[in-house]
């Protein structure tokens, strides 16, 4: 299968695939005048009143790396769909440069642009945009057909693309016979059929109901894992952006407000607009256990001959009920409480630490999403230790820390 085996050299995660520099888009009759006013610092509404022009994209500059899922986010009217359409020049930019693989597409002659669209860039639409007069197979083969690829070759590729999205057997169906989720699978197959290096997705899953939307997001991530492309995904849904995005670009009123990884944006929002996005976001999906684990508990390094009394003394000094016992290599060993430790010391147990370990404490992996560990933390009477992949102690999560984190979201 073509999608799985082909190894695209350009898909190195570090190289720049699309580079956008100082891009403006002005809608209206007198764009140059509007740009002049904009450089004088006039506001959007002033410019609209003076020239009748509206500013779609205002000085956007950023790079999109090869092989990443880059999500452009914003409220409606923020210019995110316009920005996406500038990337394949469905909308012509007013000024600025857009380089794809180092070539400036804004200066590209029409014929080369058509070549680029056929070979390198394809697109998935919010309302699917499947042609109603064609069956599924011919919809999927549409891009190949206009590129002049022979009938048998394009049928083969279209069938492979349909198979990749799990719709083999539907090739003779009409688009209006399919459910929304299936329609968008066809839309995805159509975009994949020409094996593009760039996939533009305009609110591709927004018209689907929540369950199907999640399913399609997983599907996209799976396809991306099989064969990595550069995906530019427009969304107004932060949950979706956080779920699938390697990096997120947040737009407001045509401006790019912030570009960063999901973590960066949540932990360090650029302004109130950005912050307002995740007021409603389920933080437990965004954060991982490692993000909120804190080393506020006393940690005791286990070594030969360490006296339990000294340990108890330290816990009392820090006014802590619990202590985490780690090895010299920071490996997590167990958790003790003052009570359990005192008990063992009184009983003159041979190895007071080991025997004082509280039962039923399973450490959590730091990479675990917070949503998966809520129950564990809530149901535990003591702070739950968090370890990394190599069993090294990272910190612990107390109930109060958990509540504080969740509270930040609401």
């Amino acid at each position: 299968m073509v999608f799985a085996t082909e190894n695209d050299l350009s898909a190195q995660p570090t190289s720049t695939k699309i580079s956008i520099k100082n891009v403006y888009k002005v809608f209206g009759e007198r764009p140059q005048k509007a740009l002049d006013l904009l450089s004088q610092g006039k506001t959007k509404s002033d410019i609209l009143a003076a020239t009748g022009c509206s500013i779609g994209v205002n000085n956007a500059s950023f790079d999109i790396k090869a092989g990443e899922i880059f999500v452009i986010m914003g409220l409606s009217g923020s210019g995110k769909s316009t920005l996406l359409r500038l990337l394949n020049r469905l909308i012509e930019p007013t000024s600025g440069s857009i380089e794809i693989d180092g070539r400036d597409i804004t200066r590209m002659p029409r014929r080369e642009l058509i070549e680029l669209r056929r070979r390198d860039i394809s697109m998935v639409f919010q309302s699917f945009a499947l042609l109603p007069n064609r069956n599924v197979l011919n919809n999927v083969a549409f891009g190949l057909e206009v590129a002049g690829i022979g009938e048998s070759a394009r049928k083969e590729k279209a069938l492979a693309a349909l198979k990749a999205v799990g719709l083999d057997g539907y090739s003779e169906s009409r688009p209006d016979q399919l459910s929304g989720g299936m329609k968008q699978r066809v839309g995805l197959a159509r975009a994949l059929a020409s094996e593009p290096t760039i996939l533009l997705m305009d609110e591709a899953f927004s018209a689907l109901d929540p369950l199907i939307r999640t399913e399609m997001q997983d599907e996209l991530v799976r396809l991306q894992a099989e064969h990595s492309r550069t995906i530019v995904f427009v969304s107004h849904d932060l949950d979706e952006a956080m779920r699938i995005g390697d990096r997120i670009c947040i737009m407001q009123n045509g401006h790019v407000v912030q570009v960063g990884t999901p973590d960066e944006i949540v932990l360090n929002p650029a302004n109130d607009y950005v912050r307002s996005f995740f007021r409603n976001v389920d933080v437990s999906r965004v954060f991982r256990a490692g993000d909120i684990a804190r080393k506020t508990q006393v940690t005791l390094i286990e070594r030969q001959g360490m006296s339990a009394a000294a340990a108890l003394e330290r816990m009392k000094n820090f006014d802590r009920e619990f202590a985490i016992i780690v090895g010299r290599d920071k490996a997590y060993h167990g958790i003790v409480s003052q009570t359990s430790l005192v008990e063992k010391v009184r009983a003159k147990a041979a190895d007071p630490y080991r025997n004082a370990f509280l039962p039923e404490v399973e450490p959590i992996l730091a990479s675990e999403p917070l949503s998966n560990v809520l129950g564990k933390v809530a149901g535990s009477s003591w702070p739950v230790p968090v370890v990394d992949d190599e069993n090294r102690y990272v910190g612990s999560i107390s109930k109060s820390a958990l509540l504080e984190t969740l509270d930040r979201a609401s």
Partner: protein
Amino acid sequence: MNFDIGDGVDSAVNYILDNFGPLLDFIAATIGLVTNSIQDALLAIPMPVGLAVFVALSLWRVGPGFAVFTGLSLWLVEHMQLWPAMMETLSLVIASTIIAMVIGLPLGIAMARSDRVAAAVRPVLDLMQTMPAFVYLIPAAMFFGLGAVPGTIATVIFSMPPVVRLTNLGIRQVHVEFIEAGNAFGCTASQLLFKVQLPNAMPSIMAGINQTIMLSLSMVVIASMIGAGGIGNTVLTGIQRLDVGTGFEGGIAVVILAVILDRITQSLGRKRAGIWRVLFQKTARQETAEAAA
């Protein structure tokens, strides 16, 4: 102050007559060839065969009930001795519709692709539709004499606007995401037109063609005044002799032809009924009822 527009039009017509004779002859010959060959072909078909073809078309495209109507009404036309006249009229309708489509479809496409063309063509279409139909008869007769050719030309002028308008409208109404999809997948301008715009504008274009056919049928009757022939002659004779019966017979025949053409051409815009469904006498409504049950 008096403007003598009439004189101006007269002299323009004379100027054209004097200077564009060969062009007019060429147009007349072309249209004459189209009209006459269709007419000869239709008249050569024996009545029972023609009737059978109409009934079969009605059965296939519309349904069994309408096929019965077609059979009975055409049988009535035959017994009014109007079958040959009806075939003549039909050939004029077909010829003028073909010519109207040949000119009108590209014009509608051009209007859809350019606002300037649309702005220029729209008032001309308004003029063509609102000008009393009789007015076209005069220059048509002056340029092309009497007979089927000027009749066809007057009919084309009168009946062309709907196909132009609805082609333009249909293409402009194609959903913007379809256009974007076409462009995003690398369509050239002509690929976009033929693979995206025209197929999606088809219902609207078919409605335009249907209207053009209906208008040309009504105009063909009027065109009999300049010798276009067909059922119009019967109606005209009825008027001239104040013979209500003859006029009514002609009128009935026109209505019958209109209904048959309307129903059959309307069905062309929809999906085919499917020959199997027809043979098993199952209409779409019955099928829905079964599905609901």
